[in-house]
């Protein structure tokens, strides 16, 4: 089971009300390479992957939910108290018509999240390479979003999340080595 902890993994500060940035950030909320996809992808792969790497998938999958909450926090802060007109000017008129300021699992273009974003091949190497690719794609998405905001506080939280993608990719690469070689982890190449 999962236990919720009433705190964020990393402090999220947003220094200006900017619904446009929220519109882009939602890519990491309900987009193909976003945090929801990541969490569900890894946790779902656990049931058929060799036992040696189940712990890693469980822990990274769980951390992704913490990241999902950070993204939600950013979107919440960026749009909190924004008027319908501000939302409209930020390109969120369509969103407002359907959801008011509620969060929804869609990507930056408004396409709803779909399970088609996550693969589950049942082959350990195929699944782990998918995971590594997903981390690199998420890292790239963070870069493009960091490039579009001048809010240094927001950039700070996004840089944290970008770095986490790099560490996760590192661990998945190690998982591939473990799967490949059935290696003694004490041995270092």
């Amino acid at each position, binding site marked *: 089971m999962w236990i919720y902890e*009433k705190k964020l993994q990393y402090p999220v500060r947003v220094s200006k009300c900017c619904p446009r940035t929220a519109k882009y950030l939602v890519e990491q909320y309900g987009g193909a390479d976003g945090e929801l996809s990541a969490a569900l992808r890894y946790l779902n792969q656990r049931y058929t992957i060799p036992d040696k790497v189940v712990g*890693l998938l469980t822990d990274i999958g769980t951390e992704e939910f913490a990241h999902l909450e950070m993204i939600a926090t950013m979107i919440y802060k960026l749009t909190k108290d924004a008027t319908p007109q501000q939302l409209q000017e930020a390109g969120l008129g369509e969103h407002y018509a359907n959801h008011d300021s509620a969060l929804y699992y869609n990507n930056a273009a408004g396409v709803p999240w779909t399970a088609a974003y996550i693969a589950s091949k049942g082959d350990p190497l195929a699944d782990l390479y998918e995971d590594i690719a997903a981390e690199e794609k998420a890292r790239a998405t963070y870069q493009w979003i960091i490039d579009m905001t001048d809010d240094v506080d927001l950039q700070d939280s996004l840089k944290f999340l970008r770095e986490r993608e790099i560490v996760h990719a590192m661990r998945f690469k190690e998982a591939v080595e473990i799967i490949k070689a059935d290696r003694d982890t004490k041995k270092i190449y």
Partner: protein
Amino acid sequence: MNKKLDANYYSKLLELQQLDFALVELTLYLDTHPNDLQAIQQFNQLAQQRQQCAHQFEMQYGPLLQFGHSYSKYPWQWIETPWPWQV
């Protein structure tokens, strides 16, 4: 029931986030390096520090965990603000 979010709240929270983050990093690392004794020792030591830090935080600002992993004063504290995205 609106708790005062003073500077102490933010610094205590940050301290806990720092400890917990090191524990996350060590967890993922140990998942692929289960034989690193030094890292396990560091993990256990930080876990102990974390417990103390979280306990202090909870005494002042209320429970961090649900379902019986934290204690509550009267009235039931779990439902009190702030929620993480509000601070």
